[in-house]
């Protein structure tokens, strides 16, 4: 009977936990009143935007808070034993034996100068006192269980010799070696590509079942939560605002913040014309600015009343274990929600034109690579080339958006850099407004430079930290003489207003802005010269979902206002779908499928597109998605596969082509036209590809 009780008692139980950090300005409460239970063989997802205290909770469980952090209140019970107040020595033993952690960056969890085999075996020899041979054998077994191909061989390698996805598998294997009762994962797939992420998420799902482990899974990605978690806790500004089963939270969110988050996320199934993203107004307050004695979400809530501003709500049960920290959960009907005036601009559809603004054909950008042989020292070595962009052709009609998707290293950023002139192309043609854009930047006409601008990815490096916002937007105005000198100030204010920042930002320095605000200034700067074509290189991938929604809306609004044409690069297929009229899918420097967005996201698919789509985590636990996983890793661009570049990983060619798809290995595939605009780079006949089912079917 005792065994039975143990079966049902939670592995981990947090009650009213509060964690503070000591700072220069006194103690700051990072997390307060956090309570949740995690049971064996279930995954509890902690989800929220950055700065909400997710990681603090994870580190708090094992008391990894550093010298200035401490748990000030509440209790953390692990298998019924209290953890708060234990000495570091006791905790260390526990962490090694029964609690394991997996972090975001696998390269930081692995020692680069020790072989993987030694690192894995060390866990067993230290904690279990196993003999070296036995530990080795067990390590190999464990690597096989995390689906590591060629496990015995991987044991001899160093971490840098295997890919990022494989590294993360090694870290997970290491965590599982001691058969821990609790596994804490902090954004374990955030640094990985979608196709790799999909494989790791499958693995986590399998392991939970096989090992009977309780998992705390921390992420900002609502799609990932829907795929791997059984229970979810939504955190906002250091508090748990809603907890419940994953179905309940996605189906019937009770807290206005959760409802707002759901409206921020672009969904794969929706089209550009019909869909809207509704950002949450305002921003997450810093710990010291959080409202006291009031609902922390009240300043941003559409339903807030006087009570919300004067009383602090508690997490209370709404129904069957679904709890929310809101006074009005029963009253609020999210279906009846109407966006407040001015939150989302009316966006007119793009004008219909046939005229192509930019036409690129057979564009190639190769990087020369010195070979490491002795001959190359004397200049006789054979030159090798990294084919970053190869045989790329497309055109963008005026006023439309071309989305470019692909995994990291597929050449999408190089393509953008080649067009703006930051990289010199090796061959091919590119025509834009009657200019030849294959010439390097230094030889370009100022008029051409003015018409081609870029929005960058990283908000922290997009602005020069030494100059004010106003100065940085004024500079392109002066350079290109867009407006007369006297009216430059007014023009800057107008641009700032266009990106929804008021004039007070003129004298601010970049360090005084948040990530989203910096990105807006970056957009204003790009549009200052009134360019015809703006290339956006992952402009929202570093931003939180609610900020991302606002920036995406803004980009679309500005695009309509100025009639700008855009190339939008992203790795997130949902965002690209939301934003683009046309989509190009890239793999290993090649465009493998291109066409209007609706056609790309429906059959016939190029097999790579199909695999990408089926890997995307969808923020809807009820959506049905085909299960296609790519084997192996992206081949090196230094030595790309012959024939079709995708043949080494293609899951379709063996079953759909005669002779097991031998033709793909030797012959370059033809461009098959599905419609006039939709082209697929594949040997498999279109009739066959058309028979495939759509990847995503919503219930």
């Amino acid at each position, binding site marked *: 009977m005792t065994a039975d009780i143990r079966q049902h008692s939670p592995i981990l139980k947090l009650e009213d936990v509060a964690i503070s950090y000591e700072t220069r300005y006194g103690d700051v409460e990072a997390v307060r009143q956090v309570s949740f239970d995690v049971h064996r063989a279930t995954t509890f997802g902690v989800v929220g935007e950055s700065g909400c205290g997710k990681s603090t909770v994870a580190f708090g469980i094992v008391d990894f808070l550093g010298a200035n952090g401490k748990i000030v209140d509440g209790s953390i019970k692990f298998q019924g034993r209290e953890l708060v107040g234990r000495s570091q020595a006791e905790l260390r033993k526990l962490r090694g034996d029964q609690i394991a952690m997996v972090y975001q960056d696998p390269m930081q969890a692995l020692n680069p100068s020790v072989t993987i085999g030694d690192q894995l075996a060390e866990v067993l020899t230290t904690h279990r006192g196993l003999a070296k041979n036995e530990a080795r054998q067990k390590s190999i077994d464990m690597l096989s269980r995390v689906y590591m191909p060629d496990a015995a061989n991987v044991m001899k390698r160093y971490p840098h010799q295997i890919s990022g996805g494989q590294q993360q598998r090694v870290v997970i294997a290491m965590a599982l070696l001691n058969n821990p009762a609790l596994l804490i994962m902090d954004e374990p797939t955030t640094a990985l590509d979608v196709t790799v992420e999909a494989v790791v998420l499958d693995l986590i799902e399998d392991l939970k079942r096989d090992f009977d482990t309780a998992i705390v899974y921390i992420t900002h990605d609502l799609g990932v939560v829907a795929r791997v978690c059984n229970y979810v806790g939504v955190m906002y500004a250091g508090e748990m605002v809603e907890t419940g089963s994953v179905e309940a939270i996605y189906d019937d969110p009770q807290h206005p913040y959760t409802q707002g988050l759901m409206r921020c996320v672009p969904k794969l199934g929706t089209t550009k014309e019909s869909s809207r993203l509704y950002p949450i107004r305002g921003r997450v307050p810093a710990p010291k600015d959080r409202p006291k004695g009031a609902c922390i979400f009240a300043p941003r809530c559409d339903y807030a009343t006087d009570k919300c501003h004067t009383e602090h709500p508690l997490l209370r049960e709404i129904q069957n274990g679904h709890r929310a920290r809101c006074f009005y959960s029963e009253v609020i009907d999210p279906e009846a929600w109407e966006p407040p005036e001015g939150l989302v601009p009316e966006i007119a559809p793009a004008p219909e034109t046939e005229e192509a603004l930019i036409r690129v054909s057979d564009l190639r950008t190769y990087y020369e690579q010195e070979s490491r042989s002795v001959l190359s020292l004397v200049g006789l070595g054979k030159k090798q080339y990294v084919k970053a962009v190869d045989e790329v052709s497309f055109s963008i009609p005026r006023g439309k958006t071309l989305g470019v998707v692909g995994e990291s290293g597929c050449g999408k950023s190089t393509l953008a850099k080649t067009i703006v002139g930051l990289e010199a192309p090796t061959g091919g043609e590119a025509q834009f407004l009657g200019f030849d854009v294959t010439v390097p930047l230094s030889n370009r006409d100022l008029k051409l*430079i003015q018409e081609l601008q870029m929005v*960058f990815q990283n908000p922290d490096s*997009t602005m020069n930290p030494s100059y004010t916002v106003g100065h940085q937007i004024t500079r392109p105005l002066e350079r290109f003489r867009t407006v007369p000198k006297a009216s430059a100030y007014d023009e800057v204010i107008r641009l700032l207003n266009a990106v929804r920042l008021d004039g*007070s930002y003129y004298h601010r320095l970049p360090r005084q802005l948040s990530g989203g605000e910096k990105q807006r200034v970056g957009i204003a700067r790009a549009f200052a010269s009134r360019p015809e074509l703006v290339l956006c290189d992952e402009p929202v991938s570093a931003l939180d979902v609610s900020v991302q929604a606002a920036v995406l809306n803004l980009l679309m609004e500005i695009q309509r206002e100025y009639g700008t044409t855009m190339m939008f690069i992203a790795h997130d297929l949902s965002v690209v779908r939301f934003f683009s009229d046309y989509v190009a899918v890239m793999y290993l420097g090649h465009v493998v499928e291109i066409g209007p967005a609706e056609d790309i996201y429906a059959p016939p698919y190029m097999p790579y597109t199909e695999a990408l789509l089926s890997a995307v985590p969808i923020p809807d636990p009820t959506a049905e998605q085909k299960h296609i996983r790519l084997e192996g890793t992206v081949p090196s661009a230094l030595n790309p596969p012959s024939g079709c570049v995708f043949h080494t990983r293609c899951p379709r060619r063996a079953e759909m082509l005669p002779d097991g798809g031998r033709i793909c290995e030797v012959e370059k595939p033809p461009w098959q036209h599905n419609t006039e605009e939709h082209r697929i780079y594949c040997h498999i006949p279109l009739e066959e590809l058309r028979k495939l089912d759509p990847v995503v079917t919503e219930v």
Partner: protein
Amino acid sequence: MTVSEQAIGQPTERPGGLRRAWEGARVLWSSKTAMIGLLIVGFWVFAAIFAPLLTPYTPTEQDYTAQNQGPSAEHLLGTDSLGRDIWTRLIYGAQVVLVMLPITETFWLPGGVALWGVIIGLLAGATLGLIGGYLGGWIDEVVMRILDAMMAFPVILLYMIIIAAIGASATNVVLAIAIVGIPGIARLVRSLALDIRTRDYIRAAELRGESVWYIMFVEILPNARGPIIIDAMLRVGYAIFAMGTLGFLGLGLPPPSPDWGSMVAKGRQFILSGSPWAALWPSVAIASLVIGLNLFADGLREESLRYQ
């Protein structure tokens, strides 16, 4: 704290110079090391500027009745072998080091030999470093190899070669300090430029068709200023040291001008005969000023790192 308040609050005006100076003073005040350094350096700067008011003598005035004396009410730190007042010579010597650079007999520039040496070295070194770091390629290769060759010489030897070649005078010591400092400064600026040039705002500048010089000096250099300023302060310390060494070897300012290094060299002969003062005081002066500058630079560096 002020940062986030501004970010959330009402329209802000451009932060005024006064306010920024106040912020800087606050950073300084919170570092004990930097404050002690500043006090020592401040003492010498003050003494150098107001030298004529702080002593009744001139630096070359000889009193044959009082040679090699210890400290007394009449001569604060004693006298040297020619009966010259050591305190007077020290503070007039500090003038040359810190506040005035004699070009000819009658014409001088504000700022001492050590400061001018570092400033000129900084201008040349930073330019070379920016060229190497931002442009890269063969230009970088050529510039850096030449600088490497310079670094291969021992510093003292390099000073001696330069001074022996162009002669001993205040301006030539400035030149020597500048030339010897160039490789180190160039290396520092190059490494900073290599990092900064990868930032997206440099791409943005290139996409405005800005000139290479604009990008190097307007976009890159201001963002490298922190480490450069700290390095420059340490370099002023080394320069004072170098001046002392050159003076001691007889390659400094020609006599009878009050030069700390040559004062030590002159006074050295009388240490064993019971009059160590003429050698001791200028040594203390050199050491205290160098230590003061180092403390100041270290404190500033620690404090600025802490603020990030």
